């Protein structure tokens, strides 16, 4: 995915600079940190808090509230699999074990990708996949691995 997990204070400062003049900038900042380092490092929290004149507890509270924000990197490439009702109706429970059994990747549950008439569906990075079946779901894991090594 071309992302790195190591970070420096200067990296965080750079992200903060990008959002300096925005109102309610905390979530955009945290989304950018997550995107850059595949997690929001605990060490970045005081730097962000200081810059926005917030307490560390407030920033920590936000980091732990949102499903997209993680405190540790994934380690393995992630496949986000929709497990909501419409994909359940189209058989996601039948194909999920095929992905979950693949130890090279991490399967994350999401509730709805808006592909509800074409499920089961999944997302890898910003790419979406629908009409998943036994064959295509296996290729999806390979796709995630390719993306991670690219």
């Amino acid at each position, binding site marked *: 995915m071309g992302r790195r997990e190591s970070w420096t204070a200067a990296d965080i400062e750079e992200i903060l600079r990008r959002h300096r003049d925005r*109102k*309610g*900038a*905390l*979530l*955009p900042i*945290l*989304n950018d940190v*997550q995107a850059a380092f595949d997690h929001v490092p605990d060490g970045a929290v005081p730097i962000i808090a200081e810059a*926005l004149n917030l307490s560390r507890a*407030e920033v920590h*509270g*936000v980091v732990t*509230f*949102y*499903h*997209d*924000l993680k405190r540790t990197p994934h380690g393995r490439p992630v496949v*986000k699999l929709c497990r*909501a*009702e*419409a*994909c*359940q*109706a*189209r058989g996601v429970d039948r194909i999920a074990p095929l992905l979950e059994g693949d130890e090279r990747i991490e399967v994350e549950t*999401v*509730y*709805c*990708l*808006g*592909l*509800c*008439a*074409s*499920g089961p*569906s999944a*997302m890898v990075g*910003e*790419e*979406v*996949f*629908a*009409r998943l079946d036994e064959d295509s779901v296996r290729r999806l894991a390979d796709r995630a691995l390719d993306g991670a090594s690219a």
Partner: protein
Amino acid sequence: MKFFVPGDAAACAVGADEVAAELARLFGERGIDAPIVRNGSRGMFELEPLLEVDTKEGRVGYARISAADVPAVLDAIVAGSEHPSGVGLVDELPFLKRQTRLTFARCGITDPQSIEEYREHGGLAGLERAIAIGPADTVEEVFASGLRGRGGAGFPAGIKWRTAAAAPAAQKYIVCNADEGDSGTFADRMVMEGDPFMLIEGMAIAGLAVGATSGYVYIRSEYPHAIRAMRRAIETARQHGLLGLSLLGSAFAFDMEVRVGAGAYVCGEETSMLESLEGRRGEVRAKPPLPAHVGLFGMPTIINNVLTLAAVPFILAEGARAYADFGMGRSRGTMPIQIAGNVRNGGLFETAFGITLGELVDEIGGGTLSGRPVRAVQVGGPLGAYFPPSEFHLPFDYETFAAADGLIGHAGIVVFDDTVDMAKMARFAMQFCAAESCGKCTPCRIGSVRGLETIDRIIAGEDVEANRALVEALCETMKFGSLCALGGFTPYPVLSALRHFPEDFAKARDVETVS
């Protein structure tokens, strides 16, 4: 000759990008000079990727094609011969022909990123009229149209707008709720990807009407295509004076930006969204004060769903009457209904209120994809009720569904065949509520967990009657004691499953096999 390959996420998810790339490669190889437009989807997702070509007779479609099919399809188009994937004139397909497309009139037809095409197809006429008649009459036009909030609550948009317009403040805001998290819904996504200028125009009109100069469209992170499309369109709109200090050369100013969510379903609740926009945990606020009085950053704020704001340009351009002429009872205008789940012809079906559930599922949807009998449909997302086919006579209308202990919500319909286990679906509703609860109020935070445990006991066959009564009592508490619709409406799927499908709760099973 112009070619169309949808750039909609649902088309890309089944190979549309590869089809477009192969087509472009062949054009290069064969020296064909024809534009390839990445249009929005027509909303017939079983047909995607749907390649279209415009001909003298109209636009001809080739359905469900892959990159490997493209050379043969192109040969057939050039030679004027048949190809097995051909579906003929797209506008003549029954699924499209039966619709009344007001909000989706342009979606799939035009190049979504071309503001010139937007204008040629009737765009900007609404904003021009709003500028001409002024703020007060613009608010009254929306009020007279009977437009109700399309996000689910169905609150009259005109009343919200009047309230915000009357609130004195140095700064007001327009917030567009594009956190379309309900399973079975994709209409907001289609608007943003397929006709983004319509939403921008709707927001600009709202800003003009209530005196707000700043807007935010809060899009969920699961929608990267929509985020890109909106950001690009906003940039173009600024360059063309559809946003900025002088809207279309007038004295009105309005600008907007995209904000991206971070995977919290509850942020689709309006006050939780405001908290999130301000940079806090997405915890629901108690009302009052209403957002129209004290909203974003403490200022009067209009917060409307994508479809509500997207309906506004039509209302202004054609007049309140033209919109209100459609519909039934207090449900005026059209509703972009989304047919999803285990259904043969899934997709977007915009029609006037009043169509029955049975028409939508059986006639338009064509029954299940699996070919098995329909057993249940969930209407209105994860917080909507499950209905059996015996309720298919219900007309699509806010009041009718409320009277039947359900809701139309954001108008998503998810179809299930007879293999569905309704005890499992009731269990899922509680599990979903527990996972997504913001934690602020006890009925939702604790109730969902206790509900899940109690349904598990029913499934395991423990004290079934007593535990059933307990779930019903718990649902009562959640319904009336929760701060917002997450805890308040989770009882709908649970109670409707218990009421319409009691047999699924009467067979003792190992919980592990259900969860």
